[in-house]
């Protein structure tokens, strides 16, 4: 069983909600990212979404774009991403890692090389924001034999006809986008999201994890109540930005920057 499937099964058995933080690989630097990942595990994260920094992140808001720019200034690219995952895996064999990013770096590296290096490094899943299912078949043909899960987004605008093909091609979990907009925007209508997630359950057995706009314990609890878990990105990347500005890299400062995740864990388990 893959790490992602094992982790999801364990959550289900314990009747717990998934907590999935997102950080950018190489923000603010390679070593701090690895330290942050270990800290996020200690804070109670179930899966880590690791952002592959991209120069033109057109589905992300300003906070994550700034995180990507900080990482790119350090020379972070796919080589750094794989290096970070491999280093993390030396001392953590359990926590699933999903790489999240944009397609162009994969196109330039070549899909074959990319999936092999990802699998070798210890990556468990991929979420390519600008790769809809209809264009993903050649990548899916390469990820399936390697047991790499492909996670796709479902948005409030997703039509019925698209839902079936997304559910058929997804594995790991479904990432439900809570709002029309980009990462970091504000959620307006929890009730509507609950209805959409319930409808989605009729189509898939995969866990449905909600992301975009979850920035505190209240929004996390509200979203987790109507789904199988939450993804926290911008609010965390904002804190990592403050860590960068402070210049501090010690254990206490790193733990302080991810405190939101520990708080949300506590709130979800309460």
């Amino acid at each position, binding site marked *: 069983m893959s790490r992602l499937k094992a982790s999801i099964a364990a959550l289900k058995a314990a009747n717990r909600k998934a907590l999935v933080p997102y950080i950018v690989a190489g923000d603010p630097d390679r070593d701090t990212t690895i330290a942050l990942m270990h800290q996020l595990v200690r804070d109670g994260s179930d899966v880590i979404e690791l952002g592959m920094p*991209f*120069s*033109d*992140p*057109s*589905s992300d*808001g*300003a906070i994550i*774009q700034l995180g990507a*720019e900080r990482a*790119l200034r350090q020379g972070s*690219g*796919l*080589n750094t991403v794989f290096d970070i995952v491999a280093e993390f895996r030396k001392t953590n064999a359990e926590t699933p890692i999903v790489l999240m990013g*944009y*397609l*162009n*770096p*994969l*196109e*330039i*590296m070549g899909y074959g090389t990319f999936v092999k290096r990802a699998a070798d490094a210890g990556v468990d899943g991929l979420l390519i*924001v*600008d*790769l*809809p299912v*209809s*264009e993903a078949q050649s990548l899916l043909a390469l990820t399936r034999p390697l047991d790499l899960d492909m996670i*796709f*987004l*479902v*948005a*409030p*605008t*997703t*039509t019925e006809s*698209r839902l079936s093909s*997304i559910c058929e091609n997804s594995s790991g979990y479904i990432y439900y*986008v809570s709002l*029309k*907009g*980009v990462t970091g*925007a504000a959620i307006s209508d929890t009730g509507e999201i609950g209805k959409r997630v319930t409808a989605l359950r009729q189509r898939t057995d995969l866990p449905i994890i909600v992301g975009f706009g979850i920035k505190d314990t209240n929004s996390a609890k509200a979203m987790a109540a109507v789904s199988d878990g939450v993804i926290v990105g911008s609010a965390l990347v904002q804190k990592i930005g403050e860590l960068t500005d402070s210049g501090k890299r010690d254990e206490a400062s790193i733990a302080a920057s991810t405190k939101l995740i520990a708080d949300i864990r506590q709130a979800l388990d309460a």
Partner: protein
Amino acid sequence: MSEIETVVAGTVPATIASTGQDQFSGPDVHGHFGQYGGVFVGETLMAAVEELDQVYRKLSKDPAFWQAFDHDMKHYVGRPSPLYFAERLSKKFGGAKIVLKREDLNHTGAHKINNTIGQALLAKHMGKPRIIAETGAGQHGVASATVAARLGLECHVYMGAEDVQRQSANVYRMKLMGANVIPVTSGSRTLKDALNEALRDWATNVDNTYYIIGTVAGPHPYPMLVRDFQAIIGREARAQSLQEYGRLPDALVACVGGGSNAIGLFHPFLRDSEVAIYGVEAGGDGVETGRHAAPLSAGKPGVLHGNRTYVMSDANGQIMETHSVSAGLDYPGVGPEHAWLKDIGRANYVSVTDTEALDAFRMLCRLEGIIPALESAHGLAYACKLAATMRPDQFIVVNLSGRGDKDIHTVAKIDGITV
């Protein structure tokens, strides 16, 4: 008709589905030109892109839609634009006749209006009260503000903060027509960042907003529909050539940034294999220096802003900053149909440097009394070189895609003059 195989360089042969039409009737139903094009956007925008595709496929079969388009082209834009023989310029090079397709004489001063008129008709049909657009030099922003004013639609134009500084006259033109110009301060603060920001706005306001993309890039159906609106350039040029010269031109030349003026001229001639086709990219300081905006000449296939095409990326797949004296060509991607035409060999893509373009700019001013846009001057510069290698009984049609009033400050600054 059986399936037609097209060989795409560096890949297995791509097959274009049998449609009863020939290979130039693309894209296929998924928006592919060979391996290029397609739809690469976040899930939030997929429904909007699919809706636009359905609406356009239906409307584009409706003669009344094209009658409305042609009516605006004639009475609002001032078409047809003349095909003008540049006699003194041609004499200077002693070869083929250089003939200019005068898109600079259109209302708002460039070919961009052909597209915005067409897309405004789509926005109106779809009942969207709010228009957004991205712009580099400001010509597409002006053309979008123009159609929005005419239809009474709210209009927001994203423009890189650098370009807002460089093109202040166009910023003011947009404001005069009631548009809101939003300076983009993220990334490299130029056209590509304006496009990112427009995509973000669209994802946020997708219910009430129509995004007028300014070139033959973006996700399908944009490369197809923008081409169809711009193809009026080539249809006119083809008819005018037959009328004036009794035959088709020997060559076509147009500048290529995103490539909308070029595909507009080229497309109606693609099946005329005797007509040579040249797209001219911005060579900046020279392609060999790395400081340029010539993805077809020096880029690799990748994915940017919704489509697969030639892209200028570094070894890590990050989009590179581009360099060109012309803001309208300063873009790291290019329309996917051009990528495909390059690979199948139907069109040739070349580049000219900033210096060559500036020389051509000055030459056209002095010899013909026409101030061309710096973008168009790139096409002109290559056409002059090409003409010299051809016979006097041959002729070249160059797309003079825009007028150069917007560029006089840039040129004056290079000349050390304050206007």
